[in-house]
């Protein structure tokens, strides 16, 4: 098994430019933002052929006002489930076993269905991965954009339509009045995602949850949509939860990154720190394999093995089986027996779930200051 190198060899992930709005030093020093969403100990279970399986296994997550938080992880790590839990749009089979999701201090999980209906659209809006499939094929897109206004704000049909056209123009759709009358199949993926964005911001929500909003789009269009999203979010002072498996996207727009592995948060912190000085071995491994940086012998670094199959009884650290530090540092027994907690790293803003990091066994080498903007 070829490993990436000794623990001291960690700085080989090159620094990546981060968004100018979040200089790392300023963030570390900045007072914590007023929290908009606070998720505590959320557990969600799903029925599968092998019985009930935990899709989310005790997630804690805070999103501050005006903050862009990226939720990163591989498929099956529970990213989408977290997003759907916040909006309470989990499929009926899924069960929230425990936890609270506070929006401005109010537990969303305790609201009645009607109350929750009023939260969606007006306070929490969503974007999805397949923009064309998220538009009703039998209904004009202008109608759909205006729905939040009509049914939440009780705006009249005609006014809602007029406002839809304005919104569509605002998200960069040319000939908005003509496009408003189009159906989903007449739009390209990028256009459809712009339409969805218009619909999402129509109710002036406080939180925008974007679940892999650009994964299905072409690269050149991806960049456009990301720019549109950041602009809109910053302009309207929204908070955004951006769900993605692409660490490349994260670096350019997120303030903070939360890394999920097998239903649990393994690391969270300011973007620049996570990208340039990942503490958790999984975050580091994910960074390396996403950026396809060749090792000395020309091969790519690959995380050995795969994520634990759903339903498997997990004891100790979930990443242990794939973690070379556990073996090299001789702490494998401990990692296998006791699950590490999410502990604070150098600053309160940065947390990590790893025995090796907690005990200072891994020396995190900060990237040179000169490489940051």
């Amino acid at each position: 098994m070829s490993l990436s190198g000794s623990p001291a060899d960690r700085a080989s992930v090159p620094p990546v430019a981060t968004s100018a709005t979040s200089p790392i030093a300023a963030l570390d020093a900045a007072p914590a933002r007023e929290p908009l969403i606070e998720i505590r100990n959320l557990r969600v279970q799903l029925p599968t052929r092998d019985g009930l399986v935990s899709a989310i296994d005790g997630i804690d997550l805070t999103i501050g006002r005006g903050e862009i938080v990226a939720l990163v992880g591989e498929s099956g790590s529970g990213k989408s489930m977290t997003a759907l839990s916040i909006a309470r749009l989990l499929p009926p089979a899924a069960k929230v076993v425990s936890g609270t999701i506070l929006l401005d201090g109010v537990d969303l999980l305790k609201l009645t269905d009607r109350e929750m209906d009023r939260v969606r659209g007006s306070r929490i809006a969503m974007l999805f991965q397949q923009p064309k499939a998220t538009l009703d094929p039998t209904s004009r897109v202008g109608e759909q954009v205006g729905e939040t206004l009509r049914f939440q704000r009780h705006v009249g049909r005609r006014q809602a339509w007029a406002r839809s056209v304005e919104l569509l123009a605002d998200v960069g759709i040319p000939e908005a009045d003509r496009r408003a009358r189009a159906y989903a199949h007449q739009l390209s993926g990028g256009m459809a995602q712009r339409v969805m964005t218009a619909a999402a911001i129509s109710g002036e929500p406080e939180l925008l949850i974007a679940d892999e909003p650009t994964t299905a789009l072409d690269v050149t269009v991806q960049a456009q949509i990301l720019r549109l999203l950041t602009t809109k979010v910053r302009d309207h002072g929204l908070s955004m939860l951006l769900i993605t498996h692409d660490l490349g996207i994260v670096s350019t727009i997120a303030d903070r990154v939360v890394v999920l592995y097998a239903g649990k948060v393994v690391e969270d912190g300011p973007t620049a720190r996570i990208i340039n000085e990942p503490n958790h071995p999984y975050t580091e491994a994910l960074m390396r394999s996403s950026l396809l940086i060749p090792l000395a012998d020309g091969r790519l670094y690959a995380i050995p093995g795969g994520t634990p199959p759903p339903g498997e009884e997990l004891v100790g650290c979930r990443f242990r089986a794939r973690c070379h530090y556990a073996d090299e540092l001789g702490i494998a027994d401990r990692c296998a027996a006791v699950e590490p907690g999410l502990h604070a790293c150098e600053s309160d803003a940065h947390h990590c779930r790893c025995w090796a990091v907690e005990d200072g066994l891994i020396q995190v080498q900060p990237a040179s200051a000169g490489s940051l903007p």
Partner: protein
Amino acid sequence: MARFIVRRTIFLLATLFAVSVLAFVMPYFGEGDPARMILRARMGGELALDPAVVEAVRRQFGLDQPIPIQYLRWLEAAVTGDFGQSFTNRQPVGGIVLRALGVSFLLALAALVLATIIAVPLGILAALRSGGRRDSVIVTLTQGLVALPEYWLAPLGMLVFALWLGWLPAAGWTSPISVILPASVLCLRPLAYLLGVTRASMITVLESPYITAARSRGLSQFLTLRRHGLKNAMVPVMTLFSIWLAGTLGGSVVIEVIFNIPGLGRVMYEAVVNADMPVVQAGVLATVGLAIVINTLTDIGYAALNPAILVGESNG
């Protein structure tokens, strides 16, 4: 859209033509001489026929001509609404069939509307909690309906509601009340199928991303269903409705016979029993023709309902 309608209409006319050929020509391939059939039908029995009389009838009805000529003559007349005379009662066939068709259409429509009114809400209810207890109860009961033969239920219904309880007339086609019993029996099987399709298509629709997206815009479950669920889920239901409507038009023979309803099914049945060829020919043409018209109209409605279908259509 216009192109779509034109293409469908041309297909419709082509099918109608093919059916008319089949309906006219097929009886000649059967055993028995049409001239003898005519005489048998008129005299009502198997008699020793005078060959001269048979020959006279043959010439009188133009049966000595080649079949294509006979067909063209028949078609020529048929276009003007003249389908000849019934062998048995010598009335114009066009009138007989048209009257009967009207009765059958009413009966079929009543049964299917009844079926739809019950099936669609139940199907949606089942789909909303698919896999749950309510769903399995509804689905299992429906399986029972599919297996119920009408010719069993009808006599039993008559026995219970007409003869024992005396609530409904036993048979006949006299007042609106007489529709109730036959329509109720007739509606059960289509009800089961309609329910199944409603449920299945609703489940698919409910799993669609655009439903979740609509909920995320703040629409309540009810509003989401009304605005985005129903329209999308109803497309296959409409198709099935029209297929059943077409099928029930000529297919409710048993019910019409049992309840003594003067519909097309009974007319056809009697014509077959009496070897009344012109009625059989016109009856087949009318039933199938109307059925094809209904299907074509459905296809067009389908395209109006879901604009994306037109794109798919042009791909095929």
